[in-house]
């Protein structure tokens, strides 16, 4: 088989992946020609630092979408903000500082479990549930703090949150990479992972063969919430304060990353490696927009356009086959 035949087969098989590679190449070329100075270790560090939050949230989002049942979690951004705020407020209320990560993760887990219970037990449409919790969580984060950043993050987390090993930020190295590795292993090599694909591919059959679909779904939404809580903790240790707007726009960006990474919107197809690549692409895109002096308000528009483009491309590749 020649290389071109292989490439064209890959193109036909997965238009989205091709689009992703194309975008990467285009972006790299633009950077090389327009701003060669951007290609430095410091830029890599800052890109990976921004990518840490998005990567954790996108991983959860990808798992939820993958499991099907019109799965979607619009509340992740609100969850990140509220978990971060909850962590700081717990410390202010006298919880020992050592427990900060536990509080954030637990809060995220519980907020995700609320989504999961409403969706799997009460059978309410995920879109509506998470839209409601999105406003409830982000509204709570704002109203509990009055919109002001909360100080009181213990000093011991800052060296971790801002530290680097080589040019790679520590949170990225110690949280994101293990999380993606574990997720990839779980999805490919455990029955639990195969259940997720099965219920995303055909929920009815999954139930018939005895997969505990509801339990798995509740756990997935909780896991997605816990990853958002982890992102909240990272935001604390990186920014040094609890900001009620830490998770703004993350729902849009994580959904874009998940779909850009090849997860099918109706579930059952995709993997976490693509999501990882898509996160890096998105953050690189945003960072280079900044480097070219484009106002940050354009970022949300570009992400939105990308989301639409990727879905249209996916649709196109389906009609062709």
């Amino acid at each position: 088989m020649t290389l071109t035949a292989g490439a064209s087969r890959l193109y036909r098989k997965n238009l989205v992946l091709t689009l992703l590679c194309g975008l990467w190449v285009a972006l790299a070329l633009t950077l090389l020609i327009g701003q060669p100075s951007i290609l430095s270790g410091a830029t890599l560090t800052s890109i990976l630092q921004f990518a840490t939050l998005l990567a954790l949230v996108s991983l959860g989002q990808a798992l939820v979408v993958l499991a099907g049942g019109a799965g979607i979690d619009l509340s992740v951004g609100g969850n990140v903000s509220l978990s971060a705020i909850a962590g700081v407020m717990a410390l202010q209320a006298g919880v020992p500082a050592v427990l900060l990560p536990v509080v954030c993760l637990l809060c995220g887990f519980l907020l995700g479990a609320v989504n999961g219970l409403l969706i799997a037990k009460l059978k309410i449409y995920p879109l509506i549930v998470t839209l409601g919790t999105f406003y409830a969580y982000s509204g709570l984060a704002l109203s509990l703090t009055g919109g002001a950043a909360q100080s009181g993050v213990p000093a011991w987390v800052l060296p971790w949150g801002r530290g680097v090993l080589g040019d790679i930020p520590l949170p990225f190295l110690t949280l994101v990479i293990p999380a993606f590795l574990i997720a990839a292993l779980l999805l490919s090599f455990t029955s639990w992972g195969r259940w997720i694909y099965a219920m995303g591919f055909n929920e009815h059959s999954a139930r018939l063969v005895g997969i505990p679909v509801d339990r798995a779904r509740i756990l997935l939404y909780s896991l997605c919430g816990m990853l958002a809580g982890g992102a909240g903790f990272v935001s604390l240790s990186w920014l040094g304060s609890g900001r009620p707007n830490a998770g703004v726009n993350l729902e849009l960006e994580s959904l874009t990353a998940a779909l850009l990474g090849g997860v099918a919107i109706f579930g059952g197809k995709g993997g976490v490696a693509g999501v990882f690549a898509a996160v890096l692409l998105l953050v690189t895109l945003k960072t280079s927009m900044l480097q070219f002096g484009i106002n940050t308000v354009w970022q949300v528009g570009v992400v939105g356009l990308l989301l639409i483009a990727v879905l249209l491309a996916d649709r196109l590749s389906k009609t062709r086959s």
Partner: protein
Amino acid sequence: MATSFTPALKFSGRELTLACVCLVAIVIFSLASPYFATLDNLTTVLRNSTELLLIGLGMTLLLAMGGVDVSVGVVMGLAAIVIGQLLNAGVSPGLTALSGPLVGAVIGVISALVVVVGRIPAIVGTLGLYGVYRTAVFALLGGQWLSGLPDSLTQLVSAPLLGLPITVWVIALAYGLVWLALRRTPYGLHLLAIGNSEDKARLSGIAVTRVRFATFIISGLLCGLAATFYVGTYRNVEMTIGSQLALEAIAAVVLGGTGIMGGHCSLLGTVLGVFLLRILQNGLLLIGVPSLWQTVVTGGLLLLVLTAEVLSGRLRIHNMNLRKNRLKGEGTA
């Protein structure tokens, strides 16, 4: 799960419950705050409901069709910017007022092209469009508010007609037209059929694409109309315009009993849902709850109602099964 054809304007149990809840809220807030039950304040509540009533009407159609649009608030914002700039340019208020719905309808066409023709799930498609429109609002405003607009449009929309402000007539006309379209034209039947099952609707020969396309345009048009009243009333356009409207519209419509999975709708329910939301927001503000809590209340209310609905539905089915079993027991005895 949805009933096949619920009359769009029948006073059913849901509307009655909602009306009672509105009344109870009014009574409680009147007792709690001396300022609530004043004519001034109640007029304000009605006034604040204008945009949500119009946008909620479009959202009712979308949800009944099994669709959704989370970009409605920003669409209103875009139309409001055009209106504001026309006003600043000295265009006559009549033409300016019409430009709102026109711009809204044009944006509706764009949304429909993406969601309907591009066949992207409505929620994801409109979420993407939300980002694009939001950036467009920022870019068009160029970082500063449109404020202190001429009051020619204000005079037009607040002019009394037969003793009531023109706003009231326009809203009544919009609801009347939509009601007629739902009850007296094939459009309504087709819309609800698509909401029930798009595949079956397609198989039975309904022009699904055309109906869905039209509904997105109608919703856009209503958002534009809302923009006309928004600019007419406040005479400014701020950066964050309409950021809460999508959630509020969905919450009001779901509160009103329109099924979120499509297939049936209630216009009266939407009106009552909007009023309940606005009464709660106004009343809570008056008894001293900071306005930052409004999103929490709206989101919480939406979840609460849905939960209650599902649980009460389960209870009903459970009771039905019990009765059936009892009858069966008697039959065999």
